[in-house]
């Protein structure tokens, strides 16, 4: 039988989300907490993101990933927050009981509240439908980032990248600096899914071509990858006959999207959102199971770690409040927030009238001078903003005031057609 203990708050995952949540919860008065991380060190995925650009909003400096993480790790130590490293949460139920394992020894923890901060994982080849052989040399961009930046191993010399997500772009530059030849980046969509800054500084700077509306239709090589066949696609994303060409390479990196890590949430019966892949939450980051909160990339894939920290702090403060006072009755009557035309998803999906709510959402396609609007159920405009640029790769933020939500049942967020 596993040993049984009780904790007021446990935080699952020691990446930037878990770190910020723990710091905020402790500062909000929660004393009996535990931060659980399966790796041997804190920091999560930031440890391998050695490029700079993190923390411009938080710290007003362009830090690298490990430096950004270190700032929070220092706070964890200063606040004497207990951390369990090399410890994995194996299962969780809807009564906030979790089973954890540290090097083979099991423990059951009953928690007053739980914060889910397990991050995300990369979509791998299995999630795509590229036919062809399965030679070695095909990696996710994140796995390659880990090899190069953590293990000092170069996966290959002649590289093709599928997908223009930021991790792939960052790796195009990184591998070029280490002497590899990056042949090209191929993107299925007619626009890039990476940030414009990364397109410029990771591709254009090193004369790496980006081919839009193009995909890989075949992979060649028996033991080691020898090349790929690419083809242009039409509006329906079907390859166009006659546009096929062979591109020789020994390495293929897949940068085709991230999926929130939510096995534990699923197991506990937490309602997940079909578009984000993360939990459905209210403005306090609470999921459909009382006392279980979610933040960071486990909730939805963020483009900036600064927003991860901010969201996680909100989860931390609210979890501490939940432990102290339980959930207030008002919080059970929520306003539904739904995506309208031109909007892929919103966060949160629910808000409590009277609570100031930072509303985040993603648009479905790029546009210039787009007007984003928040409508009530009768179509009245509650809030409106014009954005010089809207892009699916960049989260849009709008601050909704508590009183704007008063008396409403449903809100729609849309891009004015």
């Amino acid at each position: 039988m596993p040993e049984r203990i009780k904790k007021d708050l446990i935080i699952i995952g020691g990446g930037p989300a878990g770190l910020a949540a723990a710091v905020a919860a402790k500062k909000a008065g929660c004393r009996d907490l535990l931060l659980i991380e399966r790796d041997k060190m804190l920091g999560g995925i930031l440890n391998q993101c050695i490029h700079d650009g993190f923390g411009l909003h938080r710290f007003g400096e362009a830090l690298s990933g490990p430096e950004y993480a270190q700032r929070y790790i220092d706070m964890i130590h200063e606040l004497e927050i207990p951390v369990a490293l090399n410890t994995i949460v194996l299962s969780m139920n809807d009564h906030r009981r979790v089973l954890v394992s540290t090097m083979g020894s099991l423990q059951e923890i009953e928690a007053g509240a739980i914060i889910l901060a397990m991050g995300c994982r990369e979509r791998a080849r299995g999630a795509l439908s590229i036919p062809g052989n399965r030679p070695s040399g095909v990696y996710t961009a994140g796995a390659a980032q880990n090899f190069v930046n953590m293990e000092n191993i170069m996966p290959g010399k002649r590289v093709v990248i599928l997908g223009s997500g930021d991790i792939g772009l960052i790796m195009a530059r990184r591998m070029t600096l280490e002497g590899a030849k990056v042949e090209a980046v191929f993107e299925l969509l007619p626009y890039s899914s990476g940030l414009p800054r990364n397109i410029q500084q990771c591709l254009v700077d090193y004369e790496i071509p980006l081919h839009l509306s193009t995909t890989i239709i075949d992979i060649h090589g028996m033991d080691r990858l020898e090349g790929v066949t690419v083809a242009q696609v039409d509006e329906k994303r079907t390859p166009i006959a006659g546009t096929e060409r062979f591109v020789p390479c020994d390495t293929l990196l897949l940068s085709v999207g991230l999926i929130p890590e939510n096995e534990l949430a699923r197991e506990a019966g937490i309602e997940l959102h079909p578009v984000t892949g993360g939990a459905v939450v209210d403005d306090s980051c609470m999921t459909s199971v009382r006392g279980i909160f979610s933040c960071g990339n486990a909730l939805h894939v963020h483009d900036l770690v600064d927003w991860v920290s901010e969201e996680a702090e909100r989860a931390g403060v609210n979890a501490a409040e939940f432990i102290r006072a339980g959930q207030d009755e008002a919080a059970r009557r929520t306003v539904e927030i739904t995506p309208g035309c031109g909007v892929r998803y919103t966060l949160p999906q629910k808000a409590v009238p009277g609570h100031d709510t930072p509303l985040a959402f993603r648009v479905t396609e790029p546009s210039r001078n787009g007007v984003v609007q928040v409508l009530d159920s009768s179509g009245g405009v509650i809030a409106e903003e014009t954005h010089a640029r809207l892009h699916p790769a960049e989260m849009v933020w709008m601050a909704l005031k508590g009183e704007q939500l008063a008396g409403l049942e449903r809100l729609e967020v849309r891009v004015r057609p």
Partner: protein
Amino acid sequence: MKNEFLCVVCPNGCLIDAEFTEGKPPKLIAFEGHKCQRGEVWIRQEIENPMRTFSSNVLVENGNCITASVRTTKPVPLARVMDIMDEIRKLYPKAPLHVGDVLLNNPAGTDTSIIVTREVEQTR
């Protein structure tokens, strides 16, 4: 030559259409789309001498990790990045290393330093 550039100086993100001569370095001829003076300074710099920060790794002797990540403290001319990489590749510092430790000053004659960005402990 003509191209579109996204000004990264402020969140407005103006799209600047620029016309420039080919050649190394290229010269800016005409541009439009910027909303302010800073955008003008930026587009000229971006075309004629783009400046970049970047990151890399160095192997570490006696550390609990085999590599330490490093970065430039100030932007350097893009054209010098590879020369600086050559100097970074020769480094082999001893653990312990701390965030902010300076490993190189003025590599390849540029006005920047290479600093450590990860804590690396010494192995016993």
